[in-house]
């Protein structure tokens, strides 16, 4: 616990110092990594802990981005101050669509999410007041201090990534988190000992949508421009899924490892080796297949078990290291 607090503080300090440690290009790249990491954690929260695999999380990226642009421009307020609108809007949308969507199970839920995202994207494309297919520039960008723009975005992204990891860590250690992990492991058994599985799913769905929306808004704030094709791009959720699946679904460490591999691979192939983005996707797919074949639950669980690693341990140890209780030894040996 102490070790975790220290490394958390060190990471936070590094993030504060980031703009002076990284060059301009490095800063942009780091901001992107941190935002994708936050999104992947949010997707993981939903898929890994509530068993809901969404193929449509890009809808929250898009709604968050459009929400920010629209409100910021309409009210002529600095986009920084309007940022909280993005998660709020996504939370509202998620709570409304949860009702019909939760009647669907497994693949039907996944596909329904995707369809919903496509519908929203089509509506936005048709909406002249949202700029149609051409999209919207961020007019309120004149309210921003452009000298500090990149560093501030980096700090927001860093705060978001660190905040989601810290938040999820605390969540998993709470009573609610214990319930979440029980649902992750066995929803039938969880129900049978009193866990309200549907309520858990609802809360997690709303949280996941809100987090994704905030990350999406920050991402498009960085571009000062949003278009439906980019905001509702299915690649968003593909990246989230890839990162979570290869890193380790249902763990907090998995998405961190996944993000490192995801961007490491991208830099290696498109930057170092100079191949096209197409080859990068081929490489991603290959890596994903190999990892899935070797360890269906991603890289982190086998690494953790093999080497006894504990990074963000959310386990609870039994209160008293008990002496051998009556008769236990006898029965245990027989098993």
């Amino acid at each position, binding site marked *: 616990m102490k070790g975790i607090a220290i490394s958390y503080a060190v990471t936070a300090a590094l993030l504060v110092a980031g703009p002076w440690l990284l060059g301009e290009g490095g800063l942009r790249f780091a901001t992107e990594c941190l935002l994708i990491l936050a999104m992947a954690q949010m997707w993981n929260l939903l898929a890994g802990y509530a068993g809901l695999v969404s193929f449509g999380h890009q809808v929250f990226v898009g709604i968050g981005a459009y929400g920010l642009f629209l409100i910021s421009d309409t009210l002529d307020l600095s986009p920084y101050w309007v940022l909280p609108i993005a998660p709020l809007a996504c939370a509202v949308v998620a709570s409304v669509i949860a009702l019909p969507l939760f009647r669907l199970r497994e693949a039907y839920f996944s596909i329904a999410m995707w369809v919903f995202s496509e519908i929203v994207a089509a509506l936005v494309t048709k909406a002249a007041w949202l700029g149609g297919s051409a999209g919207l520039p961020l007019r309120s960008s004149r309210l921003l201090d452009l000298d500090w723009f990149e560093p501030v975005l980096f700090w927001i992204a860093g705060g978001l990534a660190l905040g989601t990891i810290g938040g999820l860590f605390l969540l998993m250690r709470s009573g609610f988190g214990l319930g979440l992990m029980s649902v992750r492991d066995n929803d039938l058994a969880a*129900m049978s000992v009193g866990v309200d599985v549907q309520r858990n799913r609802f809360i997690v769905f709303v949280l996941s949508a809100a987090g994704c929306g905030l990350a999406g808004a920050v991402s498009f704030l960085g571009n000062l421009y949003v278009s439906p094709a980019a905001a509702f791009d299915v690649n968003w959720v593909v990246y989230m899924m890839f990162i979570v699946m290869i890193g380790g679904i249902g763990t907090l460490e998995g998405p961190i490892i996944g993000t490192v591999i995801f961007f490491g691979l991208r830099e290696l192939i498109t930057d170092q080796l100079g191949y096209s983005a197409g080859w990068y996707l081929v490489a991603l797919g290959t890596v994903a297949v190999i990892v899935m074949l070797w360890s269906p639950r991603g890289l982190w669980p086998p690494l953790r078990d093999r080497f006894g690693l504990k990074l963000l341990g959310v*386990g609870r140890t*039994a209160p008293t290291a008990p002496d051998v209780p009556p*008769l236990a030894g006898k029965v245990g040996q027989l098993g």
Partner: protein
Amino acid sequence: MVDVLRVAGLCKSFGVIRVADDLDFKLALGECLGVIGPNGAGKSSVLNLIVGLIRADAGSISLDGRDITHVPAHRRARLGIGRAFQIPQPFPHLTAYENVLVAATYGGGLHGSAAADWAMDVLGRTSLAVKADRIAGALPLIDRKSLEFAKALASKPRLILLDEIAAGLTEPEVERLIEIIAGVKADHAMIWIEHIPHALRAVADRILVLNFGRKVLEGPPGEVMDSRTVKEIYMGLTADDAA
């Protein structure tokens, strides 16, 4: 005194398969009802109906005089039903302690140190205390069976449902399990599905024989076990012991 469990006119079919056919029975505190019957008779399904994992076609179920026929499963658990599955259903990536803690927290409604102490108490009673910090998915069968019982007990139930919890265990393990179950019997109402005659004789007050979802017999253990009906149903069905 109100019965802990009262089942009246319970019916359930899966297509042509009847798993509950106009079932009536009741159960008081401190009472254990043994349930026997051939494989596929509907024994596990009746437990599923009582805990709310499947919905009844007709009939009613009440717990402590309260109709729970339409109450969702997690609320029934909180109201006081604990169940040990025939095939152990642990939370595989959590420790034995955490498994029991989930039940103590949600089903038992306990928090903080009260939940932790009660979880340890239950682990002690079920001989799992030494393995409290072991990952449940890696426990051997006897421990996973004990953990099923521990989870059921930890939710502070009024009614405990045990589904072939002794099946597949060695004789000394069965003895130990009987001891554990007998130890908590007085404070609970209990249904115990089991094929091991001497285990039921030791604990059950009454035995209900189920066949094609119908109650064919109900009475004192000795009487039921020695009846012609049971011998006929079980004739050539000794393989059931291993199921």
